[in-house]
């Protein structure tokens, strides 16, 4: 924290990520409060039903979000070193490779099957970690996904999707 009087606007831009995150927590609390209001009133004389706990949780998130916002606007979350993060900026391509792998896996696991979807995920995730040996990674991924599939489907009888493969 800077000892001199940092203008509020400056602090806010410095911790803009924290501000957005705090507002998201407040909004989550608000949304849950709205949802709680849609729940039916408790019946019976004890007046306890499904509403009580959701009211506690939504209220809690709302208040915690406001407290986080206050920290974010006044010097940032306590004990979080933002300088450390600007030194090593997020390597977004890596993030995207892995994200693509997982989203494709969700789309393909049923129609194409666990083994092929898993192999593809393996190759894309390995790319995220900087490995470009796609063919070799594909073979390794196929072996891992294949053995896992065989073990869980035939060994334990857990139904994993075969997809386009005949077995």
């Amino acid at each position, binding site marked *: 924290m800077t000892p001199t009087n940092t203008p509020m606007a400056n602090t806010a831009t410095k911790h803009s990520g924290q501000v957005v995150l705090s507002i998201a927590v407040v909004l989550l609390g608000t949304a849950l409060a709205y949802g709680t209001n849609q729940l039916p009133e408790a019946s019976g004389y004890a007046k306890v039903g*499904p509403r*009580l706990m959701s009211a506690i949780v939504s209220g809690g998130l709302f208040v915690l979000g406001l407290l986080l916002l206050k920290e974010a606007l006044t010097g940032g979350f306590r004990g979080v070193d933002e300088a450390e993060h600007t030194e*090593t900026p997020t390597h977004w391509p890596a993030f995207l490779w892995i994200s693509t792998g997982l989203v494709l896996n969700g789309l393909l696991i049923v129609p194409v099957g666990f083994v092929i979807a898993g192999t593809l995920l393996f190759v894309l995730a390995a790319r995220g970690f900087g490995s470009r040996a796609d063919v070799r990674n594909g073979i390794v991924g196929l072996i*891992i996904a294949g053995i896992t599939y065989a073990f869980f489907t035939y060994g334990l009888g857990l139904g994993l999707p075969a997809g386009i493969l005949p077995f």
Partner: protein
Amino acid sequence: MDVLNSLAQGFSLALTMQNLLWCFVGVTLGTAVGVLPGIGPAVTVALLLPVTTKIDPSGALIMFAGIYYGAMYGGSTTSILLNTPGESATIVTAMEGNQMAKRGRAGAALGTSAIGSFVAGTLTVVALTFVSPLVVDIAIQFGPPEFFALMVLAFTTVSAVLGGSALRGLTALFIGLAIGLVGIDSQSGTARFAFDVPQLLDGIEVVTVAVGLFAVGETLWAASKDYKTVETMNAMRGSIWMTAEDWKRSWGPWLRGTAIGFPFGTMPAGGAEIPTFLSYAIEKKLSKHPEEFGHGAIEGVAGPEAANNASSTGTMTTLLALGLPTSATAAILLAAFQQYGLQPGPLLFVNSADLVWALIASMYIGNVMLLVLNLPLVGIWVKLLKIPKPMLYAGILIFATLGVFGMRQSAFDIFLLYAIGVLGFVMRRYDFPTAPVIIGMILGPLAEAQLRRSLSISQGDWMIFLQKPLSASLLAITAAMLIGPWAWKKIKKA
């Protein structure tokens, strides 16, 4: 004696071929995931939850418990040989053990931590055997208000007291509680926050949340943030068979570490970090060679490793006897019990005595297996550390999709897994702890049930929590812990 009879009964069940096999699979897997960075016992048990539909409860729970305490053995190998701790509880071992390895004493460091873990593991299972029936005797008289107050206390300690910031810890806890709300309320049948999505009506699976936060979040982080860290591996040098001098310097720290670790584990003050640091500090004070600390003192490995292992058994005691999980892994073990319609806690000792005692007996056996796995066979585990990062994390992701999809055969859960992975990434970026999310999600619905039961008994009168002496004192302790630090600061300022 009653306890010894029950234990003998437990051994007769645990020593069947089948259960010995599950125990072996559990401790082997546990050691492996303890050694491997990027995957820990919590994720592993979560990933294996789908198998609960296929194997019998005693086998599955013996295996899951084996993974939990097995990982404590494996974690030290990584800490000693790599310059990064395998898990947070092995930070101290990473400092001191790594220094020993740098001076060509890796063997002795691995030896003292494996034997120390065995000593601590075995002594604390004995403690568990005799302490848990006593706890059960007391807890069996608890009513809903007492249980609710106990859970509130546990929530507070795991989220607000431990970790860097009470505010961020509590936020994580409440996110977990919110996740726990999703789905059909078991008592009234009302759907909450499901938006008519069929997959959400059934609730969000523990596997998806645990694997998303820990495995997927960790993978995203390792690939996009941690790419600069270069791990240097220390060579496995020096005999793993310790010298007479090493033995002489190790046994005291083992016993003291055990004595410190077990009570910390049993208390709902979760986490193995505090006892390991405490043990380190004590050994440094007592040592005849305090100057060696920080440069590879064997006491600094022996004590904390024993404390680490002892606290994990302590956590098991609280889980079994009170039904209270004080760590993320314990929370997932609780979820595993629930898969079989079982609820850990005092009634489990009454209703499923066979199962509980077989599980306890298996822990004696598992610790012996682990000593063999980690001492003469340590070379095999060291090879695991040579798996290149891209292969390791890509492989973890395949297992992640296996566990999540296997739970209820729904591609929807894979997308949810990714979304929770991103949440885990964001939480890590802004230094929010993730364990409270898991504990909130699993313990939340149980706390809600106790809360509603209490209020039904009192016909809606909240004073019931203050009228019972035990629940009133537990709530007072909770309030003191939440307000105390804040009030202290105000007083100091004034």
